[in-house]
């Protein structure tokens, strides 16, 4: 084992640039560089310090030299993410006195954001996200299973690329597509006189229908690799032990898939919960949703001086998203055991 693995690294290392850069830029450029630079090369060469142990001072210098590379990343995140997020948490717990203009610590905003219309908005968002996440998980898995078990390989290619496009087709364009289809003057509404049946796109059901349009494809794309991991041998083994298809799914398939499915459901929940544009364009403020309420408060549509209330509502969203994401972490480890 030792002598079979030892040669390949050098071999593959030399081969990879040549293979994967067919233009030949890597070998062509590095080959002449050895000529003129060869005498200068040795002193600065060792990429790993332990390859050629130099004096301690130089090694520490080299190590310090590497930190600046990652500094921009951390600085960027601190300013562009940390600052707004920190302001959000700080503002959520601060009440500005209109007379003196000074802020003081208070939980007024947070309690305000959890009562009255804002509580309805928060529960409305959570309900919508739960509903769509559940439906998207089930429908997405059924479609993905249909694709995996299909004898035609071309179908898979079509579904994967369509899924990629449709999963990105959200926000304002999606809202317009649905308004044009099922809105009051929409094509399908007029064709089938849906308005007489009492159906309205600008309702909870309408939102669910529209959200599923980008969530189901996302779920299909997410769950396909996990379904590929279900080996045909397991099904054959179950069948040869006398299990029916239903028993196979109940005792083997679903338990193995559970972590992936729950992970997908968490992703679906997060996507639906964070989504704002589709609902804002489609239903405006007629449906109580926390994202729309935050946008209204920020634009000063409701009352002036509600910025801190908007921050408190944002904080609530982050807390809920964190709680839901936390479910996923222990599950991920279990899924790699079987499907890794």
């Amino acid at each position, binding site marked *: 084992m030792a002598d079979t693995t030892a040669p390949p690294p050098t071999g593959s290392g030399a081969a990879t640039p040549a293979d994967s850069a067919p233009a030949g*830029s890597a070998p062509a450029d590095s080959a002449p560089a050895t000529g003129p630079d060869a005498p200068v090369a040795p002193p600065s060469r060792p990429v790993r310090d332990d390859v050629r142990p130099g004096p301690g001072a130089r090694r520490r210098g080299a190590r310090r030299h590497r930190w600046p590379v990652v500094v921009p990343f951390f600085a960027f995140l601190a300013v*562009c993410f940390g600052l707004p997020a920190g302001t959000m948490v700080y503002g959520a717990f601060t009440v500005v006195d209109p007379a003196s203009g000074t802020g003081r610590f208070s939980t007024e905003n947070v309690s305000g954001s959890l009562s009255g219309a804002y509580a309805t908005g928060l529960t409305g968002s959570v309900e919508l996200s739960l509903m769509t996440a559940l439906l998207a998980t089930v429908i997405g898995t059924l479609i993905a299973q*249909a694709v995996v078990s299909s004898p035609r390989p071309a179908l898979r290619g079509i579904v994967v690329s369509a899924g990629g496009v449709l999963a990105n087709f959200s926000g304002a364009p999606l809202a*317009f597509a649905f308004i044009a289809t099922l809105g009051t003057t929409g*094509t399908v509404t007029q064709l089938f006189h849906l308005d007489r049946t009492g159906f309205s796109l600008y309702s909870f059901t309408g939102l669910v229908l529209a959200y599923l349009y980008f969530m189901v494809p996302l779920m299909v794309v997410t769950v396909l690799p996990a379904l590929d991991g279900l080996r045909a041998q397991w099904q054959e083994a179950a069948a040869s032990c006398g299990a029916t298809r239903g028993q196979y799914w109940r005792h083997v398939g679903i338990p193995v898939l559970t972590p992936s499915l729950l992970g997908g459901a968490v992703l679906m929940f997060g996507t639906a919960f964070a989504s704002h544009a589709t609902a804002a364009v489609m239903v405006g403020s007629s449906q109580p949703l926390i994202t729309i309420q935050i946008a209204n408060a920020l634009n000063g549509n409701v009352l002036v001086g509600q910025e801190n209330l908007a921050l408190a509502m944002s904080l609530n969203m982050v807390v809920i998203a964190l709680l839901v994401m936390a479910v996923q972490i222990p599950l991920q480890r279990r899924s790699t055991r079987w499907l890794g």
Partner: protein
Amino acid sequence: MARMKFTSRGVVLPLAALYFLVPIGASIWFSVNEVEGVSFDAYTKGLGAEGLTTSLMLSVRLGLATIVCGLLLMVPTLVAVVLYLPRLRRIVEILCMMPLVVPPIALVAGVTTVLSWEQDLADTPLYMTFQLLRDEDFPLVLVLVYTVMSLPFLYRSLDAGLRAVDLRTLVEAARSLGASRLQTLWQIVVPNLRTAVVGGAVLSLAMVLGEYTVASVLSYRPFSVWMVEIKDSEAQLSVAAAMLSLLITWGLLLLLTTLAGGRSRRRANSVRENRKKTVS
């Protein structure tokens, strides 16, 4: 459960096709349907409509700036983390996934508050920075927010790319042949990560082109905000614009799958061959 086969293939796929195709077909019909028959006015005249080119160009410029900003930030960082600072890997991963926990609307709530400090800073040099950030013609603040929002895609795609190549050997080989650090990064590392770089870039571009929340709260006017603004006066044009944006997304992702498909198949083959060698 013998129905399983029947339900999954015979019913599920046609129903799904119906659900996904009807809105697109209905929208196209909506945008061309006139009282006196079919007319493509929304597409032909619409393209010259006031604001379309400006807003679409703003979206494209924002998208490209976001890609440049994100890649400049992420590629050197991830390469350095893989090569020299493996202990930071977990931290960088968590930081890059943070934007998934903070929804865009919550992030922009924080950004609005930060931007409202402008008045308090009127006497300091920072005031100029704020003016620059909020420039009507090219709002840098949007680029910064979009870069934060694109970090999860960029991280996922670059991380997958970095796992697929033996970066350490490549860099050692390049360095021992006399390439400088920048040369190594630009001529060895980036070409080897091409698929990952393109993949992350295309996903960020698709995200920026369709983004509505942040831009509308900060009251700028890229493509999707323009689309919403005209919806009351010109419903057909806004639906036509929605179809156009679907077409753009489709084109972008088709480009990505073509690039990624060709490469990953080759890589999968070479991996399989390597494995065969090791086994034998």
